[in-house]
């Protein structure tokens, strides 16, 4: 019967240009959809609308300057990106940082992660059509940004990490503010579930949509919460612990389903975990120096260096090939969003436009991170 119908009702495939200006592409991402009615046959992407060639720029910058460029990659986890470069240089030069630095870095990481996930949650709801979530997400994000502002002097691109420590010491209000935030957010997180997670329409929109198997997830290089939604254990904080992650107790969240709802749940649960990490550390910030003395001109010995950190979007890596000069010979930023985006075609095959929007939202792309 279905064959007969498709034979009788001749349809024609057509192209739809989604982006670079489109509300669902979260920036200047351009997708070329091959559609049959509303059903997606193929997704092709065209990137580079905000390509700034940061990797090439790094080749003419000193290591201290590179840190500032990493802010502009994934601007929602700028602190974590900064940290990756600092950790790489510190590892290469065997600079041992104090416990205070490690703990503060970890706390800032987790605050960044929460603020990124909260923003994601708001936008996720908006992509599915529930506009109110955006405002709720921003309520909490505002609090975190205020904490950042007080200590780092900036709200988004913080540049708080420097090689060998931190730029400034903590603001005196930091501990109190973080405690206030933990108390506030603990009450508000269940509200998120009430508003969105348990909504029937929302669940129906996500469950079973954008399935990717565990094997495919590894093969496509998926990482971060996107891969953990397929049951892949890939949390860098657990695998290659850095800063103070080896001394805090947290769970790596994985869900085996591999659909959009699993990816959604991973991020929601990660917020709970981040909160618990913050709770463990907030009372135990050790005394000590906030900055270790380093040389004025930093030169990495010849060789290959790799540092991976778990950014809010996943496995962010910095690869540096040094030839012993004060400028790196080649810098590669391994972008988590780019790897996640490559699986989009696989995930969205045979689904509808509305599903594509949902999938794009659950893989949580930030276009500057993809374009680099």
């Amino acid at each position: 019967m279905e064959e007969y119908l498709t034979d009788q009702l001749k349809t024609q495939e057509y192209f739809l240009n989604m982006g670079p200006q489109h509300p669902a592409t979260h920036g200047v991402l351009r997708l070329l959809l091959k559609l049959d009615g509303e059903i997606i046959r193929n997704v092709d992407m065209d990137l580079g609308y905000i390509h700034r060639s940061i990797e090439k720029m790094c080749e003419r910058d000193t290591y201290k300057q590179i840190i500032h460029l990493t802010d502009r990659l994934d601007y929602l986890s700028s602190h974590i990106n900064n940290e990756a470069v600092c950790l790489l240089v510190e590892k290469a030069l065997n600079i041992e940082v104090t416990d205070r630095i490690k703990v503060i870095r970890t706390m800032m990481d987790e605050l960044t992660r929460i603020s990124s996930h909260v923003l994601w949650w708001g936008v996720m709801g908006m992509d599915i059509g529930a506009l109110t979530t955006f405002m709720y997400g921003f309520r909490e994000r505002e609090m975190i940004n205020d904490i950042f502002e007080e200590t780092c002097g900036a709200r988004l691109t913080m540049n708080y990490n420097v090689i060998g420590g931190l730029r400034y010491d903590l603001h005196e209000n930091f501990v109190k503010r973080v405690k206030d935030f933990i108390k506030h957010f603990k009450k508000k997180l269940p509200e998120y579930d009430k508003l969105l997670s348990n909504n029937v329409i929302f669940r129906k929109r996500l469950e079973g949509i954008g399935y990717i198997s565990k094997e495919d997830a590894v093969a496509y290089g998926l990482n971060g919460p996107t891969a953990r939604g397929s049951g892949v254990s890939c949390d860098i904080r657990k695998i290659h612990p850095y800063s103070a992650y080896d001394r805090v107790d947290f769970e790596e969240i994985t869900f085996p389903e591999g659909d959009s709802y699993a990816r959604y749940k991973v991020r929601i649960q990660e917020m709970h975990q981040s909160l618990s990490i913050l709770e463990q550390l907030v009372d135990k910030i050790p005394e000590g120096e906030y900055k270790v003395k380093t040389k004025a001109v930093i030169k990495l010995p010849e060789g290959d260096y790799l540092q991976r950190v778990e950014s809010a979007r996943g496995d962010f890596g910095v690869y540096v090939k040094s030839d012993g000069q004060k400028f790196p010979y080649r810098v590669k930023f391994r972008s988590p969003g780019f790897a996640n985006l490559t699986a989009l075609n696989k995930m969205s095959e045979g689904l509808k436009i509305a599903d594509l929007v949902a999938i794009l939202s659950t893989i949580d792309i930030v276009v500057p991170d993809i374009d680099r």
Partner: protein
Amino acid sequence: MNNTDIKNKIENKFSELTISGEDKEFLTIEIPKNSLKKLLSFLKNDEELKFDYLFALTGIDFGEELGVIYHLESTKTRKTIQITVKTNDRNKPEIETIHDIFPAAYFNEIEAHEFFGIKFKGHPDLKHLFLPENWDKGYPMRKDYTDINMLIR
């Protein structure tokens, strides 16, 4: 399984490569380009090693030579490994594609092709991904590339 074990295992199977960095964080392998595919599929499919996660694919300009650096991670042992392949020909550099072994390489190879001009033999669609479709001003990430506007040096 530590770096030495991995090194021995690979050296037993392949003779034409150089491995260094046993004492470092990860092994560094340099391999001629014609045995790259064989090595990668061995690393991926070997039950003990299981280097099945392509972490990064980096195009690089060594000055004289062009090359590609692959970073693989094992989802079993959580070890990282770095594989370098080089090609002498700067005008028509060719390296075999690995996107049939690691689907993750598909778009990364397009990127390396755009910025370094490395042609990946067997890649179905080496289009312009980041650069404009009508780009014909060379390969911007190469060391000898000069940008007339001096936007990047």
